[in-house]
């Protein structure tokens, strides 16, 4: 009986064969989404960024700065790109883990930086810096970056919205944290770092919890 119902379903579905706009390959969709965001971010850094304090904070360990920035940026780009791949059925599940290596590098490098300051400055290394502003910065920047990203992802009506939401949230938060580096006029402490990652976690959580509304039905 239910097999006959399946036949009927096929007939009904085939009768509803309206032309659809075929989605471009995920790599191209990621590029088209991320390029304008990169241009916006680049412009903001160029106009408003504080390169002097950035290089000042990392004086004597410029390589470390470059590596940390690169790890943050790579986390964001890989996660956002991976979200586009996982939004489409049948693409490699490996995209879920692609941002993990740069993420670990980012976490450990920023942790190391804080440790250095803690050793040098003693207990002041524990104080809560001006991270409240950073916290708000990450949330605001995530809103600006995340809205177009999630909107573009929702076009695919992902069948596994949780994975897509996790990657989109991580990508958004990491890119925001990357931007933050250029607007950050002081040395960060462990407390600040904890605040940063709390903001990152909140962004991931918001996107993941709201996945049904933002990404369409699973």
């Amino acid at each position, binding site marked *: 009986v239910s097999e006959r119902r399946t036949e009927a379903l096929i007939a009904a579905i085939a009768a509803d064969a309206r032309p659809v706009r075929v989605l471009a390959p995920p790599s191209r969709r990621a590029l088209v989404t991320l390029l304008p965001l990169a241009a916006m971010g680049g412009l903001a850094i160029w106009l408003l960024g504080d390169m002097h304090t950035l290089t000042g904070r990392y004086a004597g360990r410029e390589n470390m700065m470059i590596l940390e920035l690169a790890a943050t940026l790579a986390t964001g780009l890989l996660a956002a790109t991976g979200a586009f791949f996982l939004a489409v059925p*049948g693409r490699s599940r490996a995209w879920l883990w692609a941002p993990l290596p740069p993420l670990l590098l980012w976490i450990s490098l920023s942790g190391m930086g804080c440790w250095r300051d803690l050793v040098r400055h003693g207990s002041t290394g524990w104080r809560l810096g001006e991270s409240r502003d950073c916290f708000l910065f990450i949330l605001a920047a995530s809103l600006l970056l995340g809205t177009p990203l999630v909107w573009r992802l929702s076009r695919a009506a992902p069948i596994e919205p949780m994975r897509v939401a996790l990657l989109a949230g991580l990508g958004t938060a990491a890119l925001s944290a990357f931007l933050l580096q250029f607007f950050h006029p002081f040395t960060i402490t462990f407390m600040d770092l904890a605040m940063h990652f709390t903001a990152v976690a909140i962004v991931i959580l918001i996107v993941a919890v709201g996945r049904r509304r933002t990404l369409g039905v699973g």
Partner: protein
Amino acid sequence: VPEPLFRAGFRANKGPEDALSQADTDWSLLLAAAQQGDGAAYRAFLEAALPFARALARRRCPNEAEVEDVVQDSLLTLHRVRHTYEPGRPVQPWLAAIVARRAVDAARRRGRTASRELHDSGAYETFADPASNREEAGDAAQSLARMMAELTPKQKEALDLVKLKEMSLAEASAASGQSIPSLKVNVHRAIRRMRAALGRAESA
């Protein structure tokens, strides 16, 4: 749709193709045409892909009813996300991902149902004619046979003579050669054992 045709042809020229990837190439063309609004191609694709989807669902579902549910859910999902198929790419991984997803959903649903609903075996005894409820009778006979299998030969014999054939202890003793006290003990132990087996079966 010239582009997918070209791409599929290009792939076909690359080397000897097995039947599977030939089927995939055909599906790819049909699905690409369906994306452009060709209902006949869409139907041909769905009918050709149905056994594949069913086989995938069967691998992940415990019973046929759920297989068909998963297949139907998958068809509806396929319809909703048909714009995500990229013409020229293999269809099977795309379709398999959809079926796998819907099978996971079905398994979760099953888990929820099992944890919140009770199974009333009596509800299946629908017919006034007792002979129509044979299925249950078969089950009962089978579970009785399973319980009997746990008994020792002497316990089985004692139970058979005293309880099923309803002989007196003296008659049973004469028939079996077991003494009256040992008949009593064996009947008692047999019943206790079967009760324990029944308890295990019900809690399982």
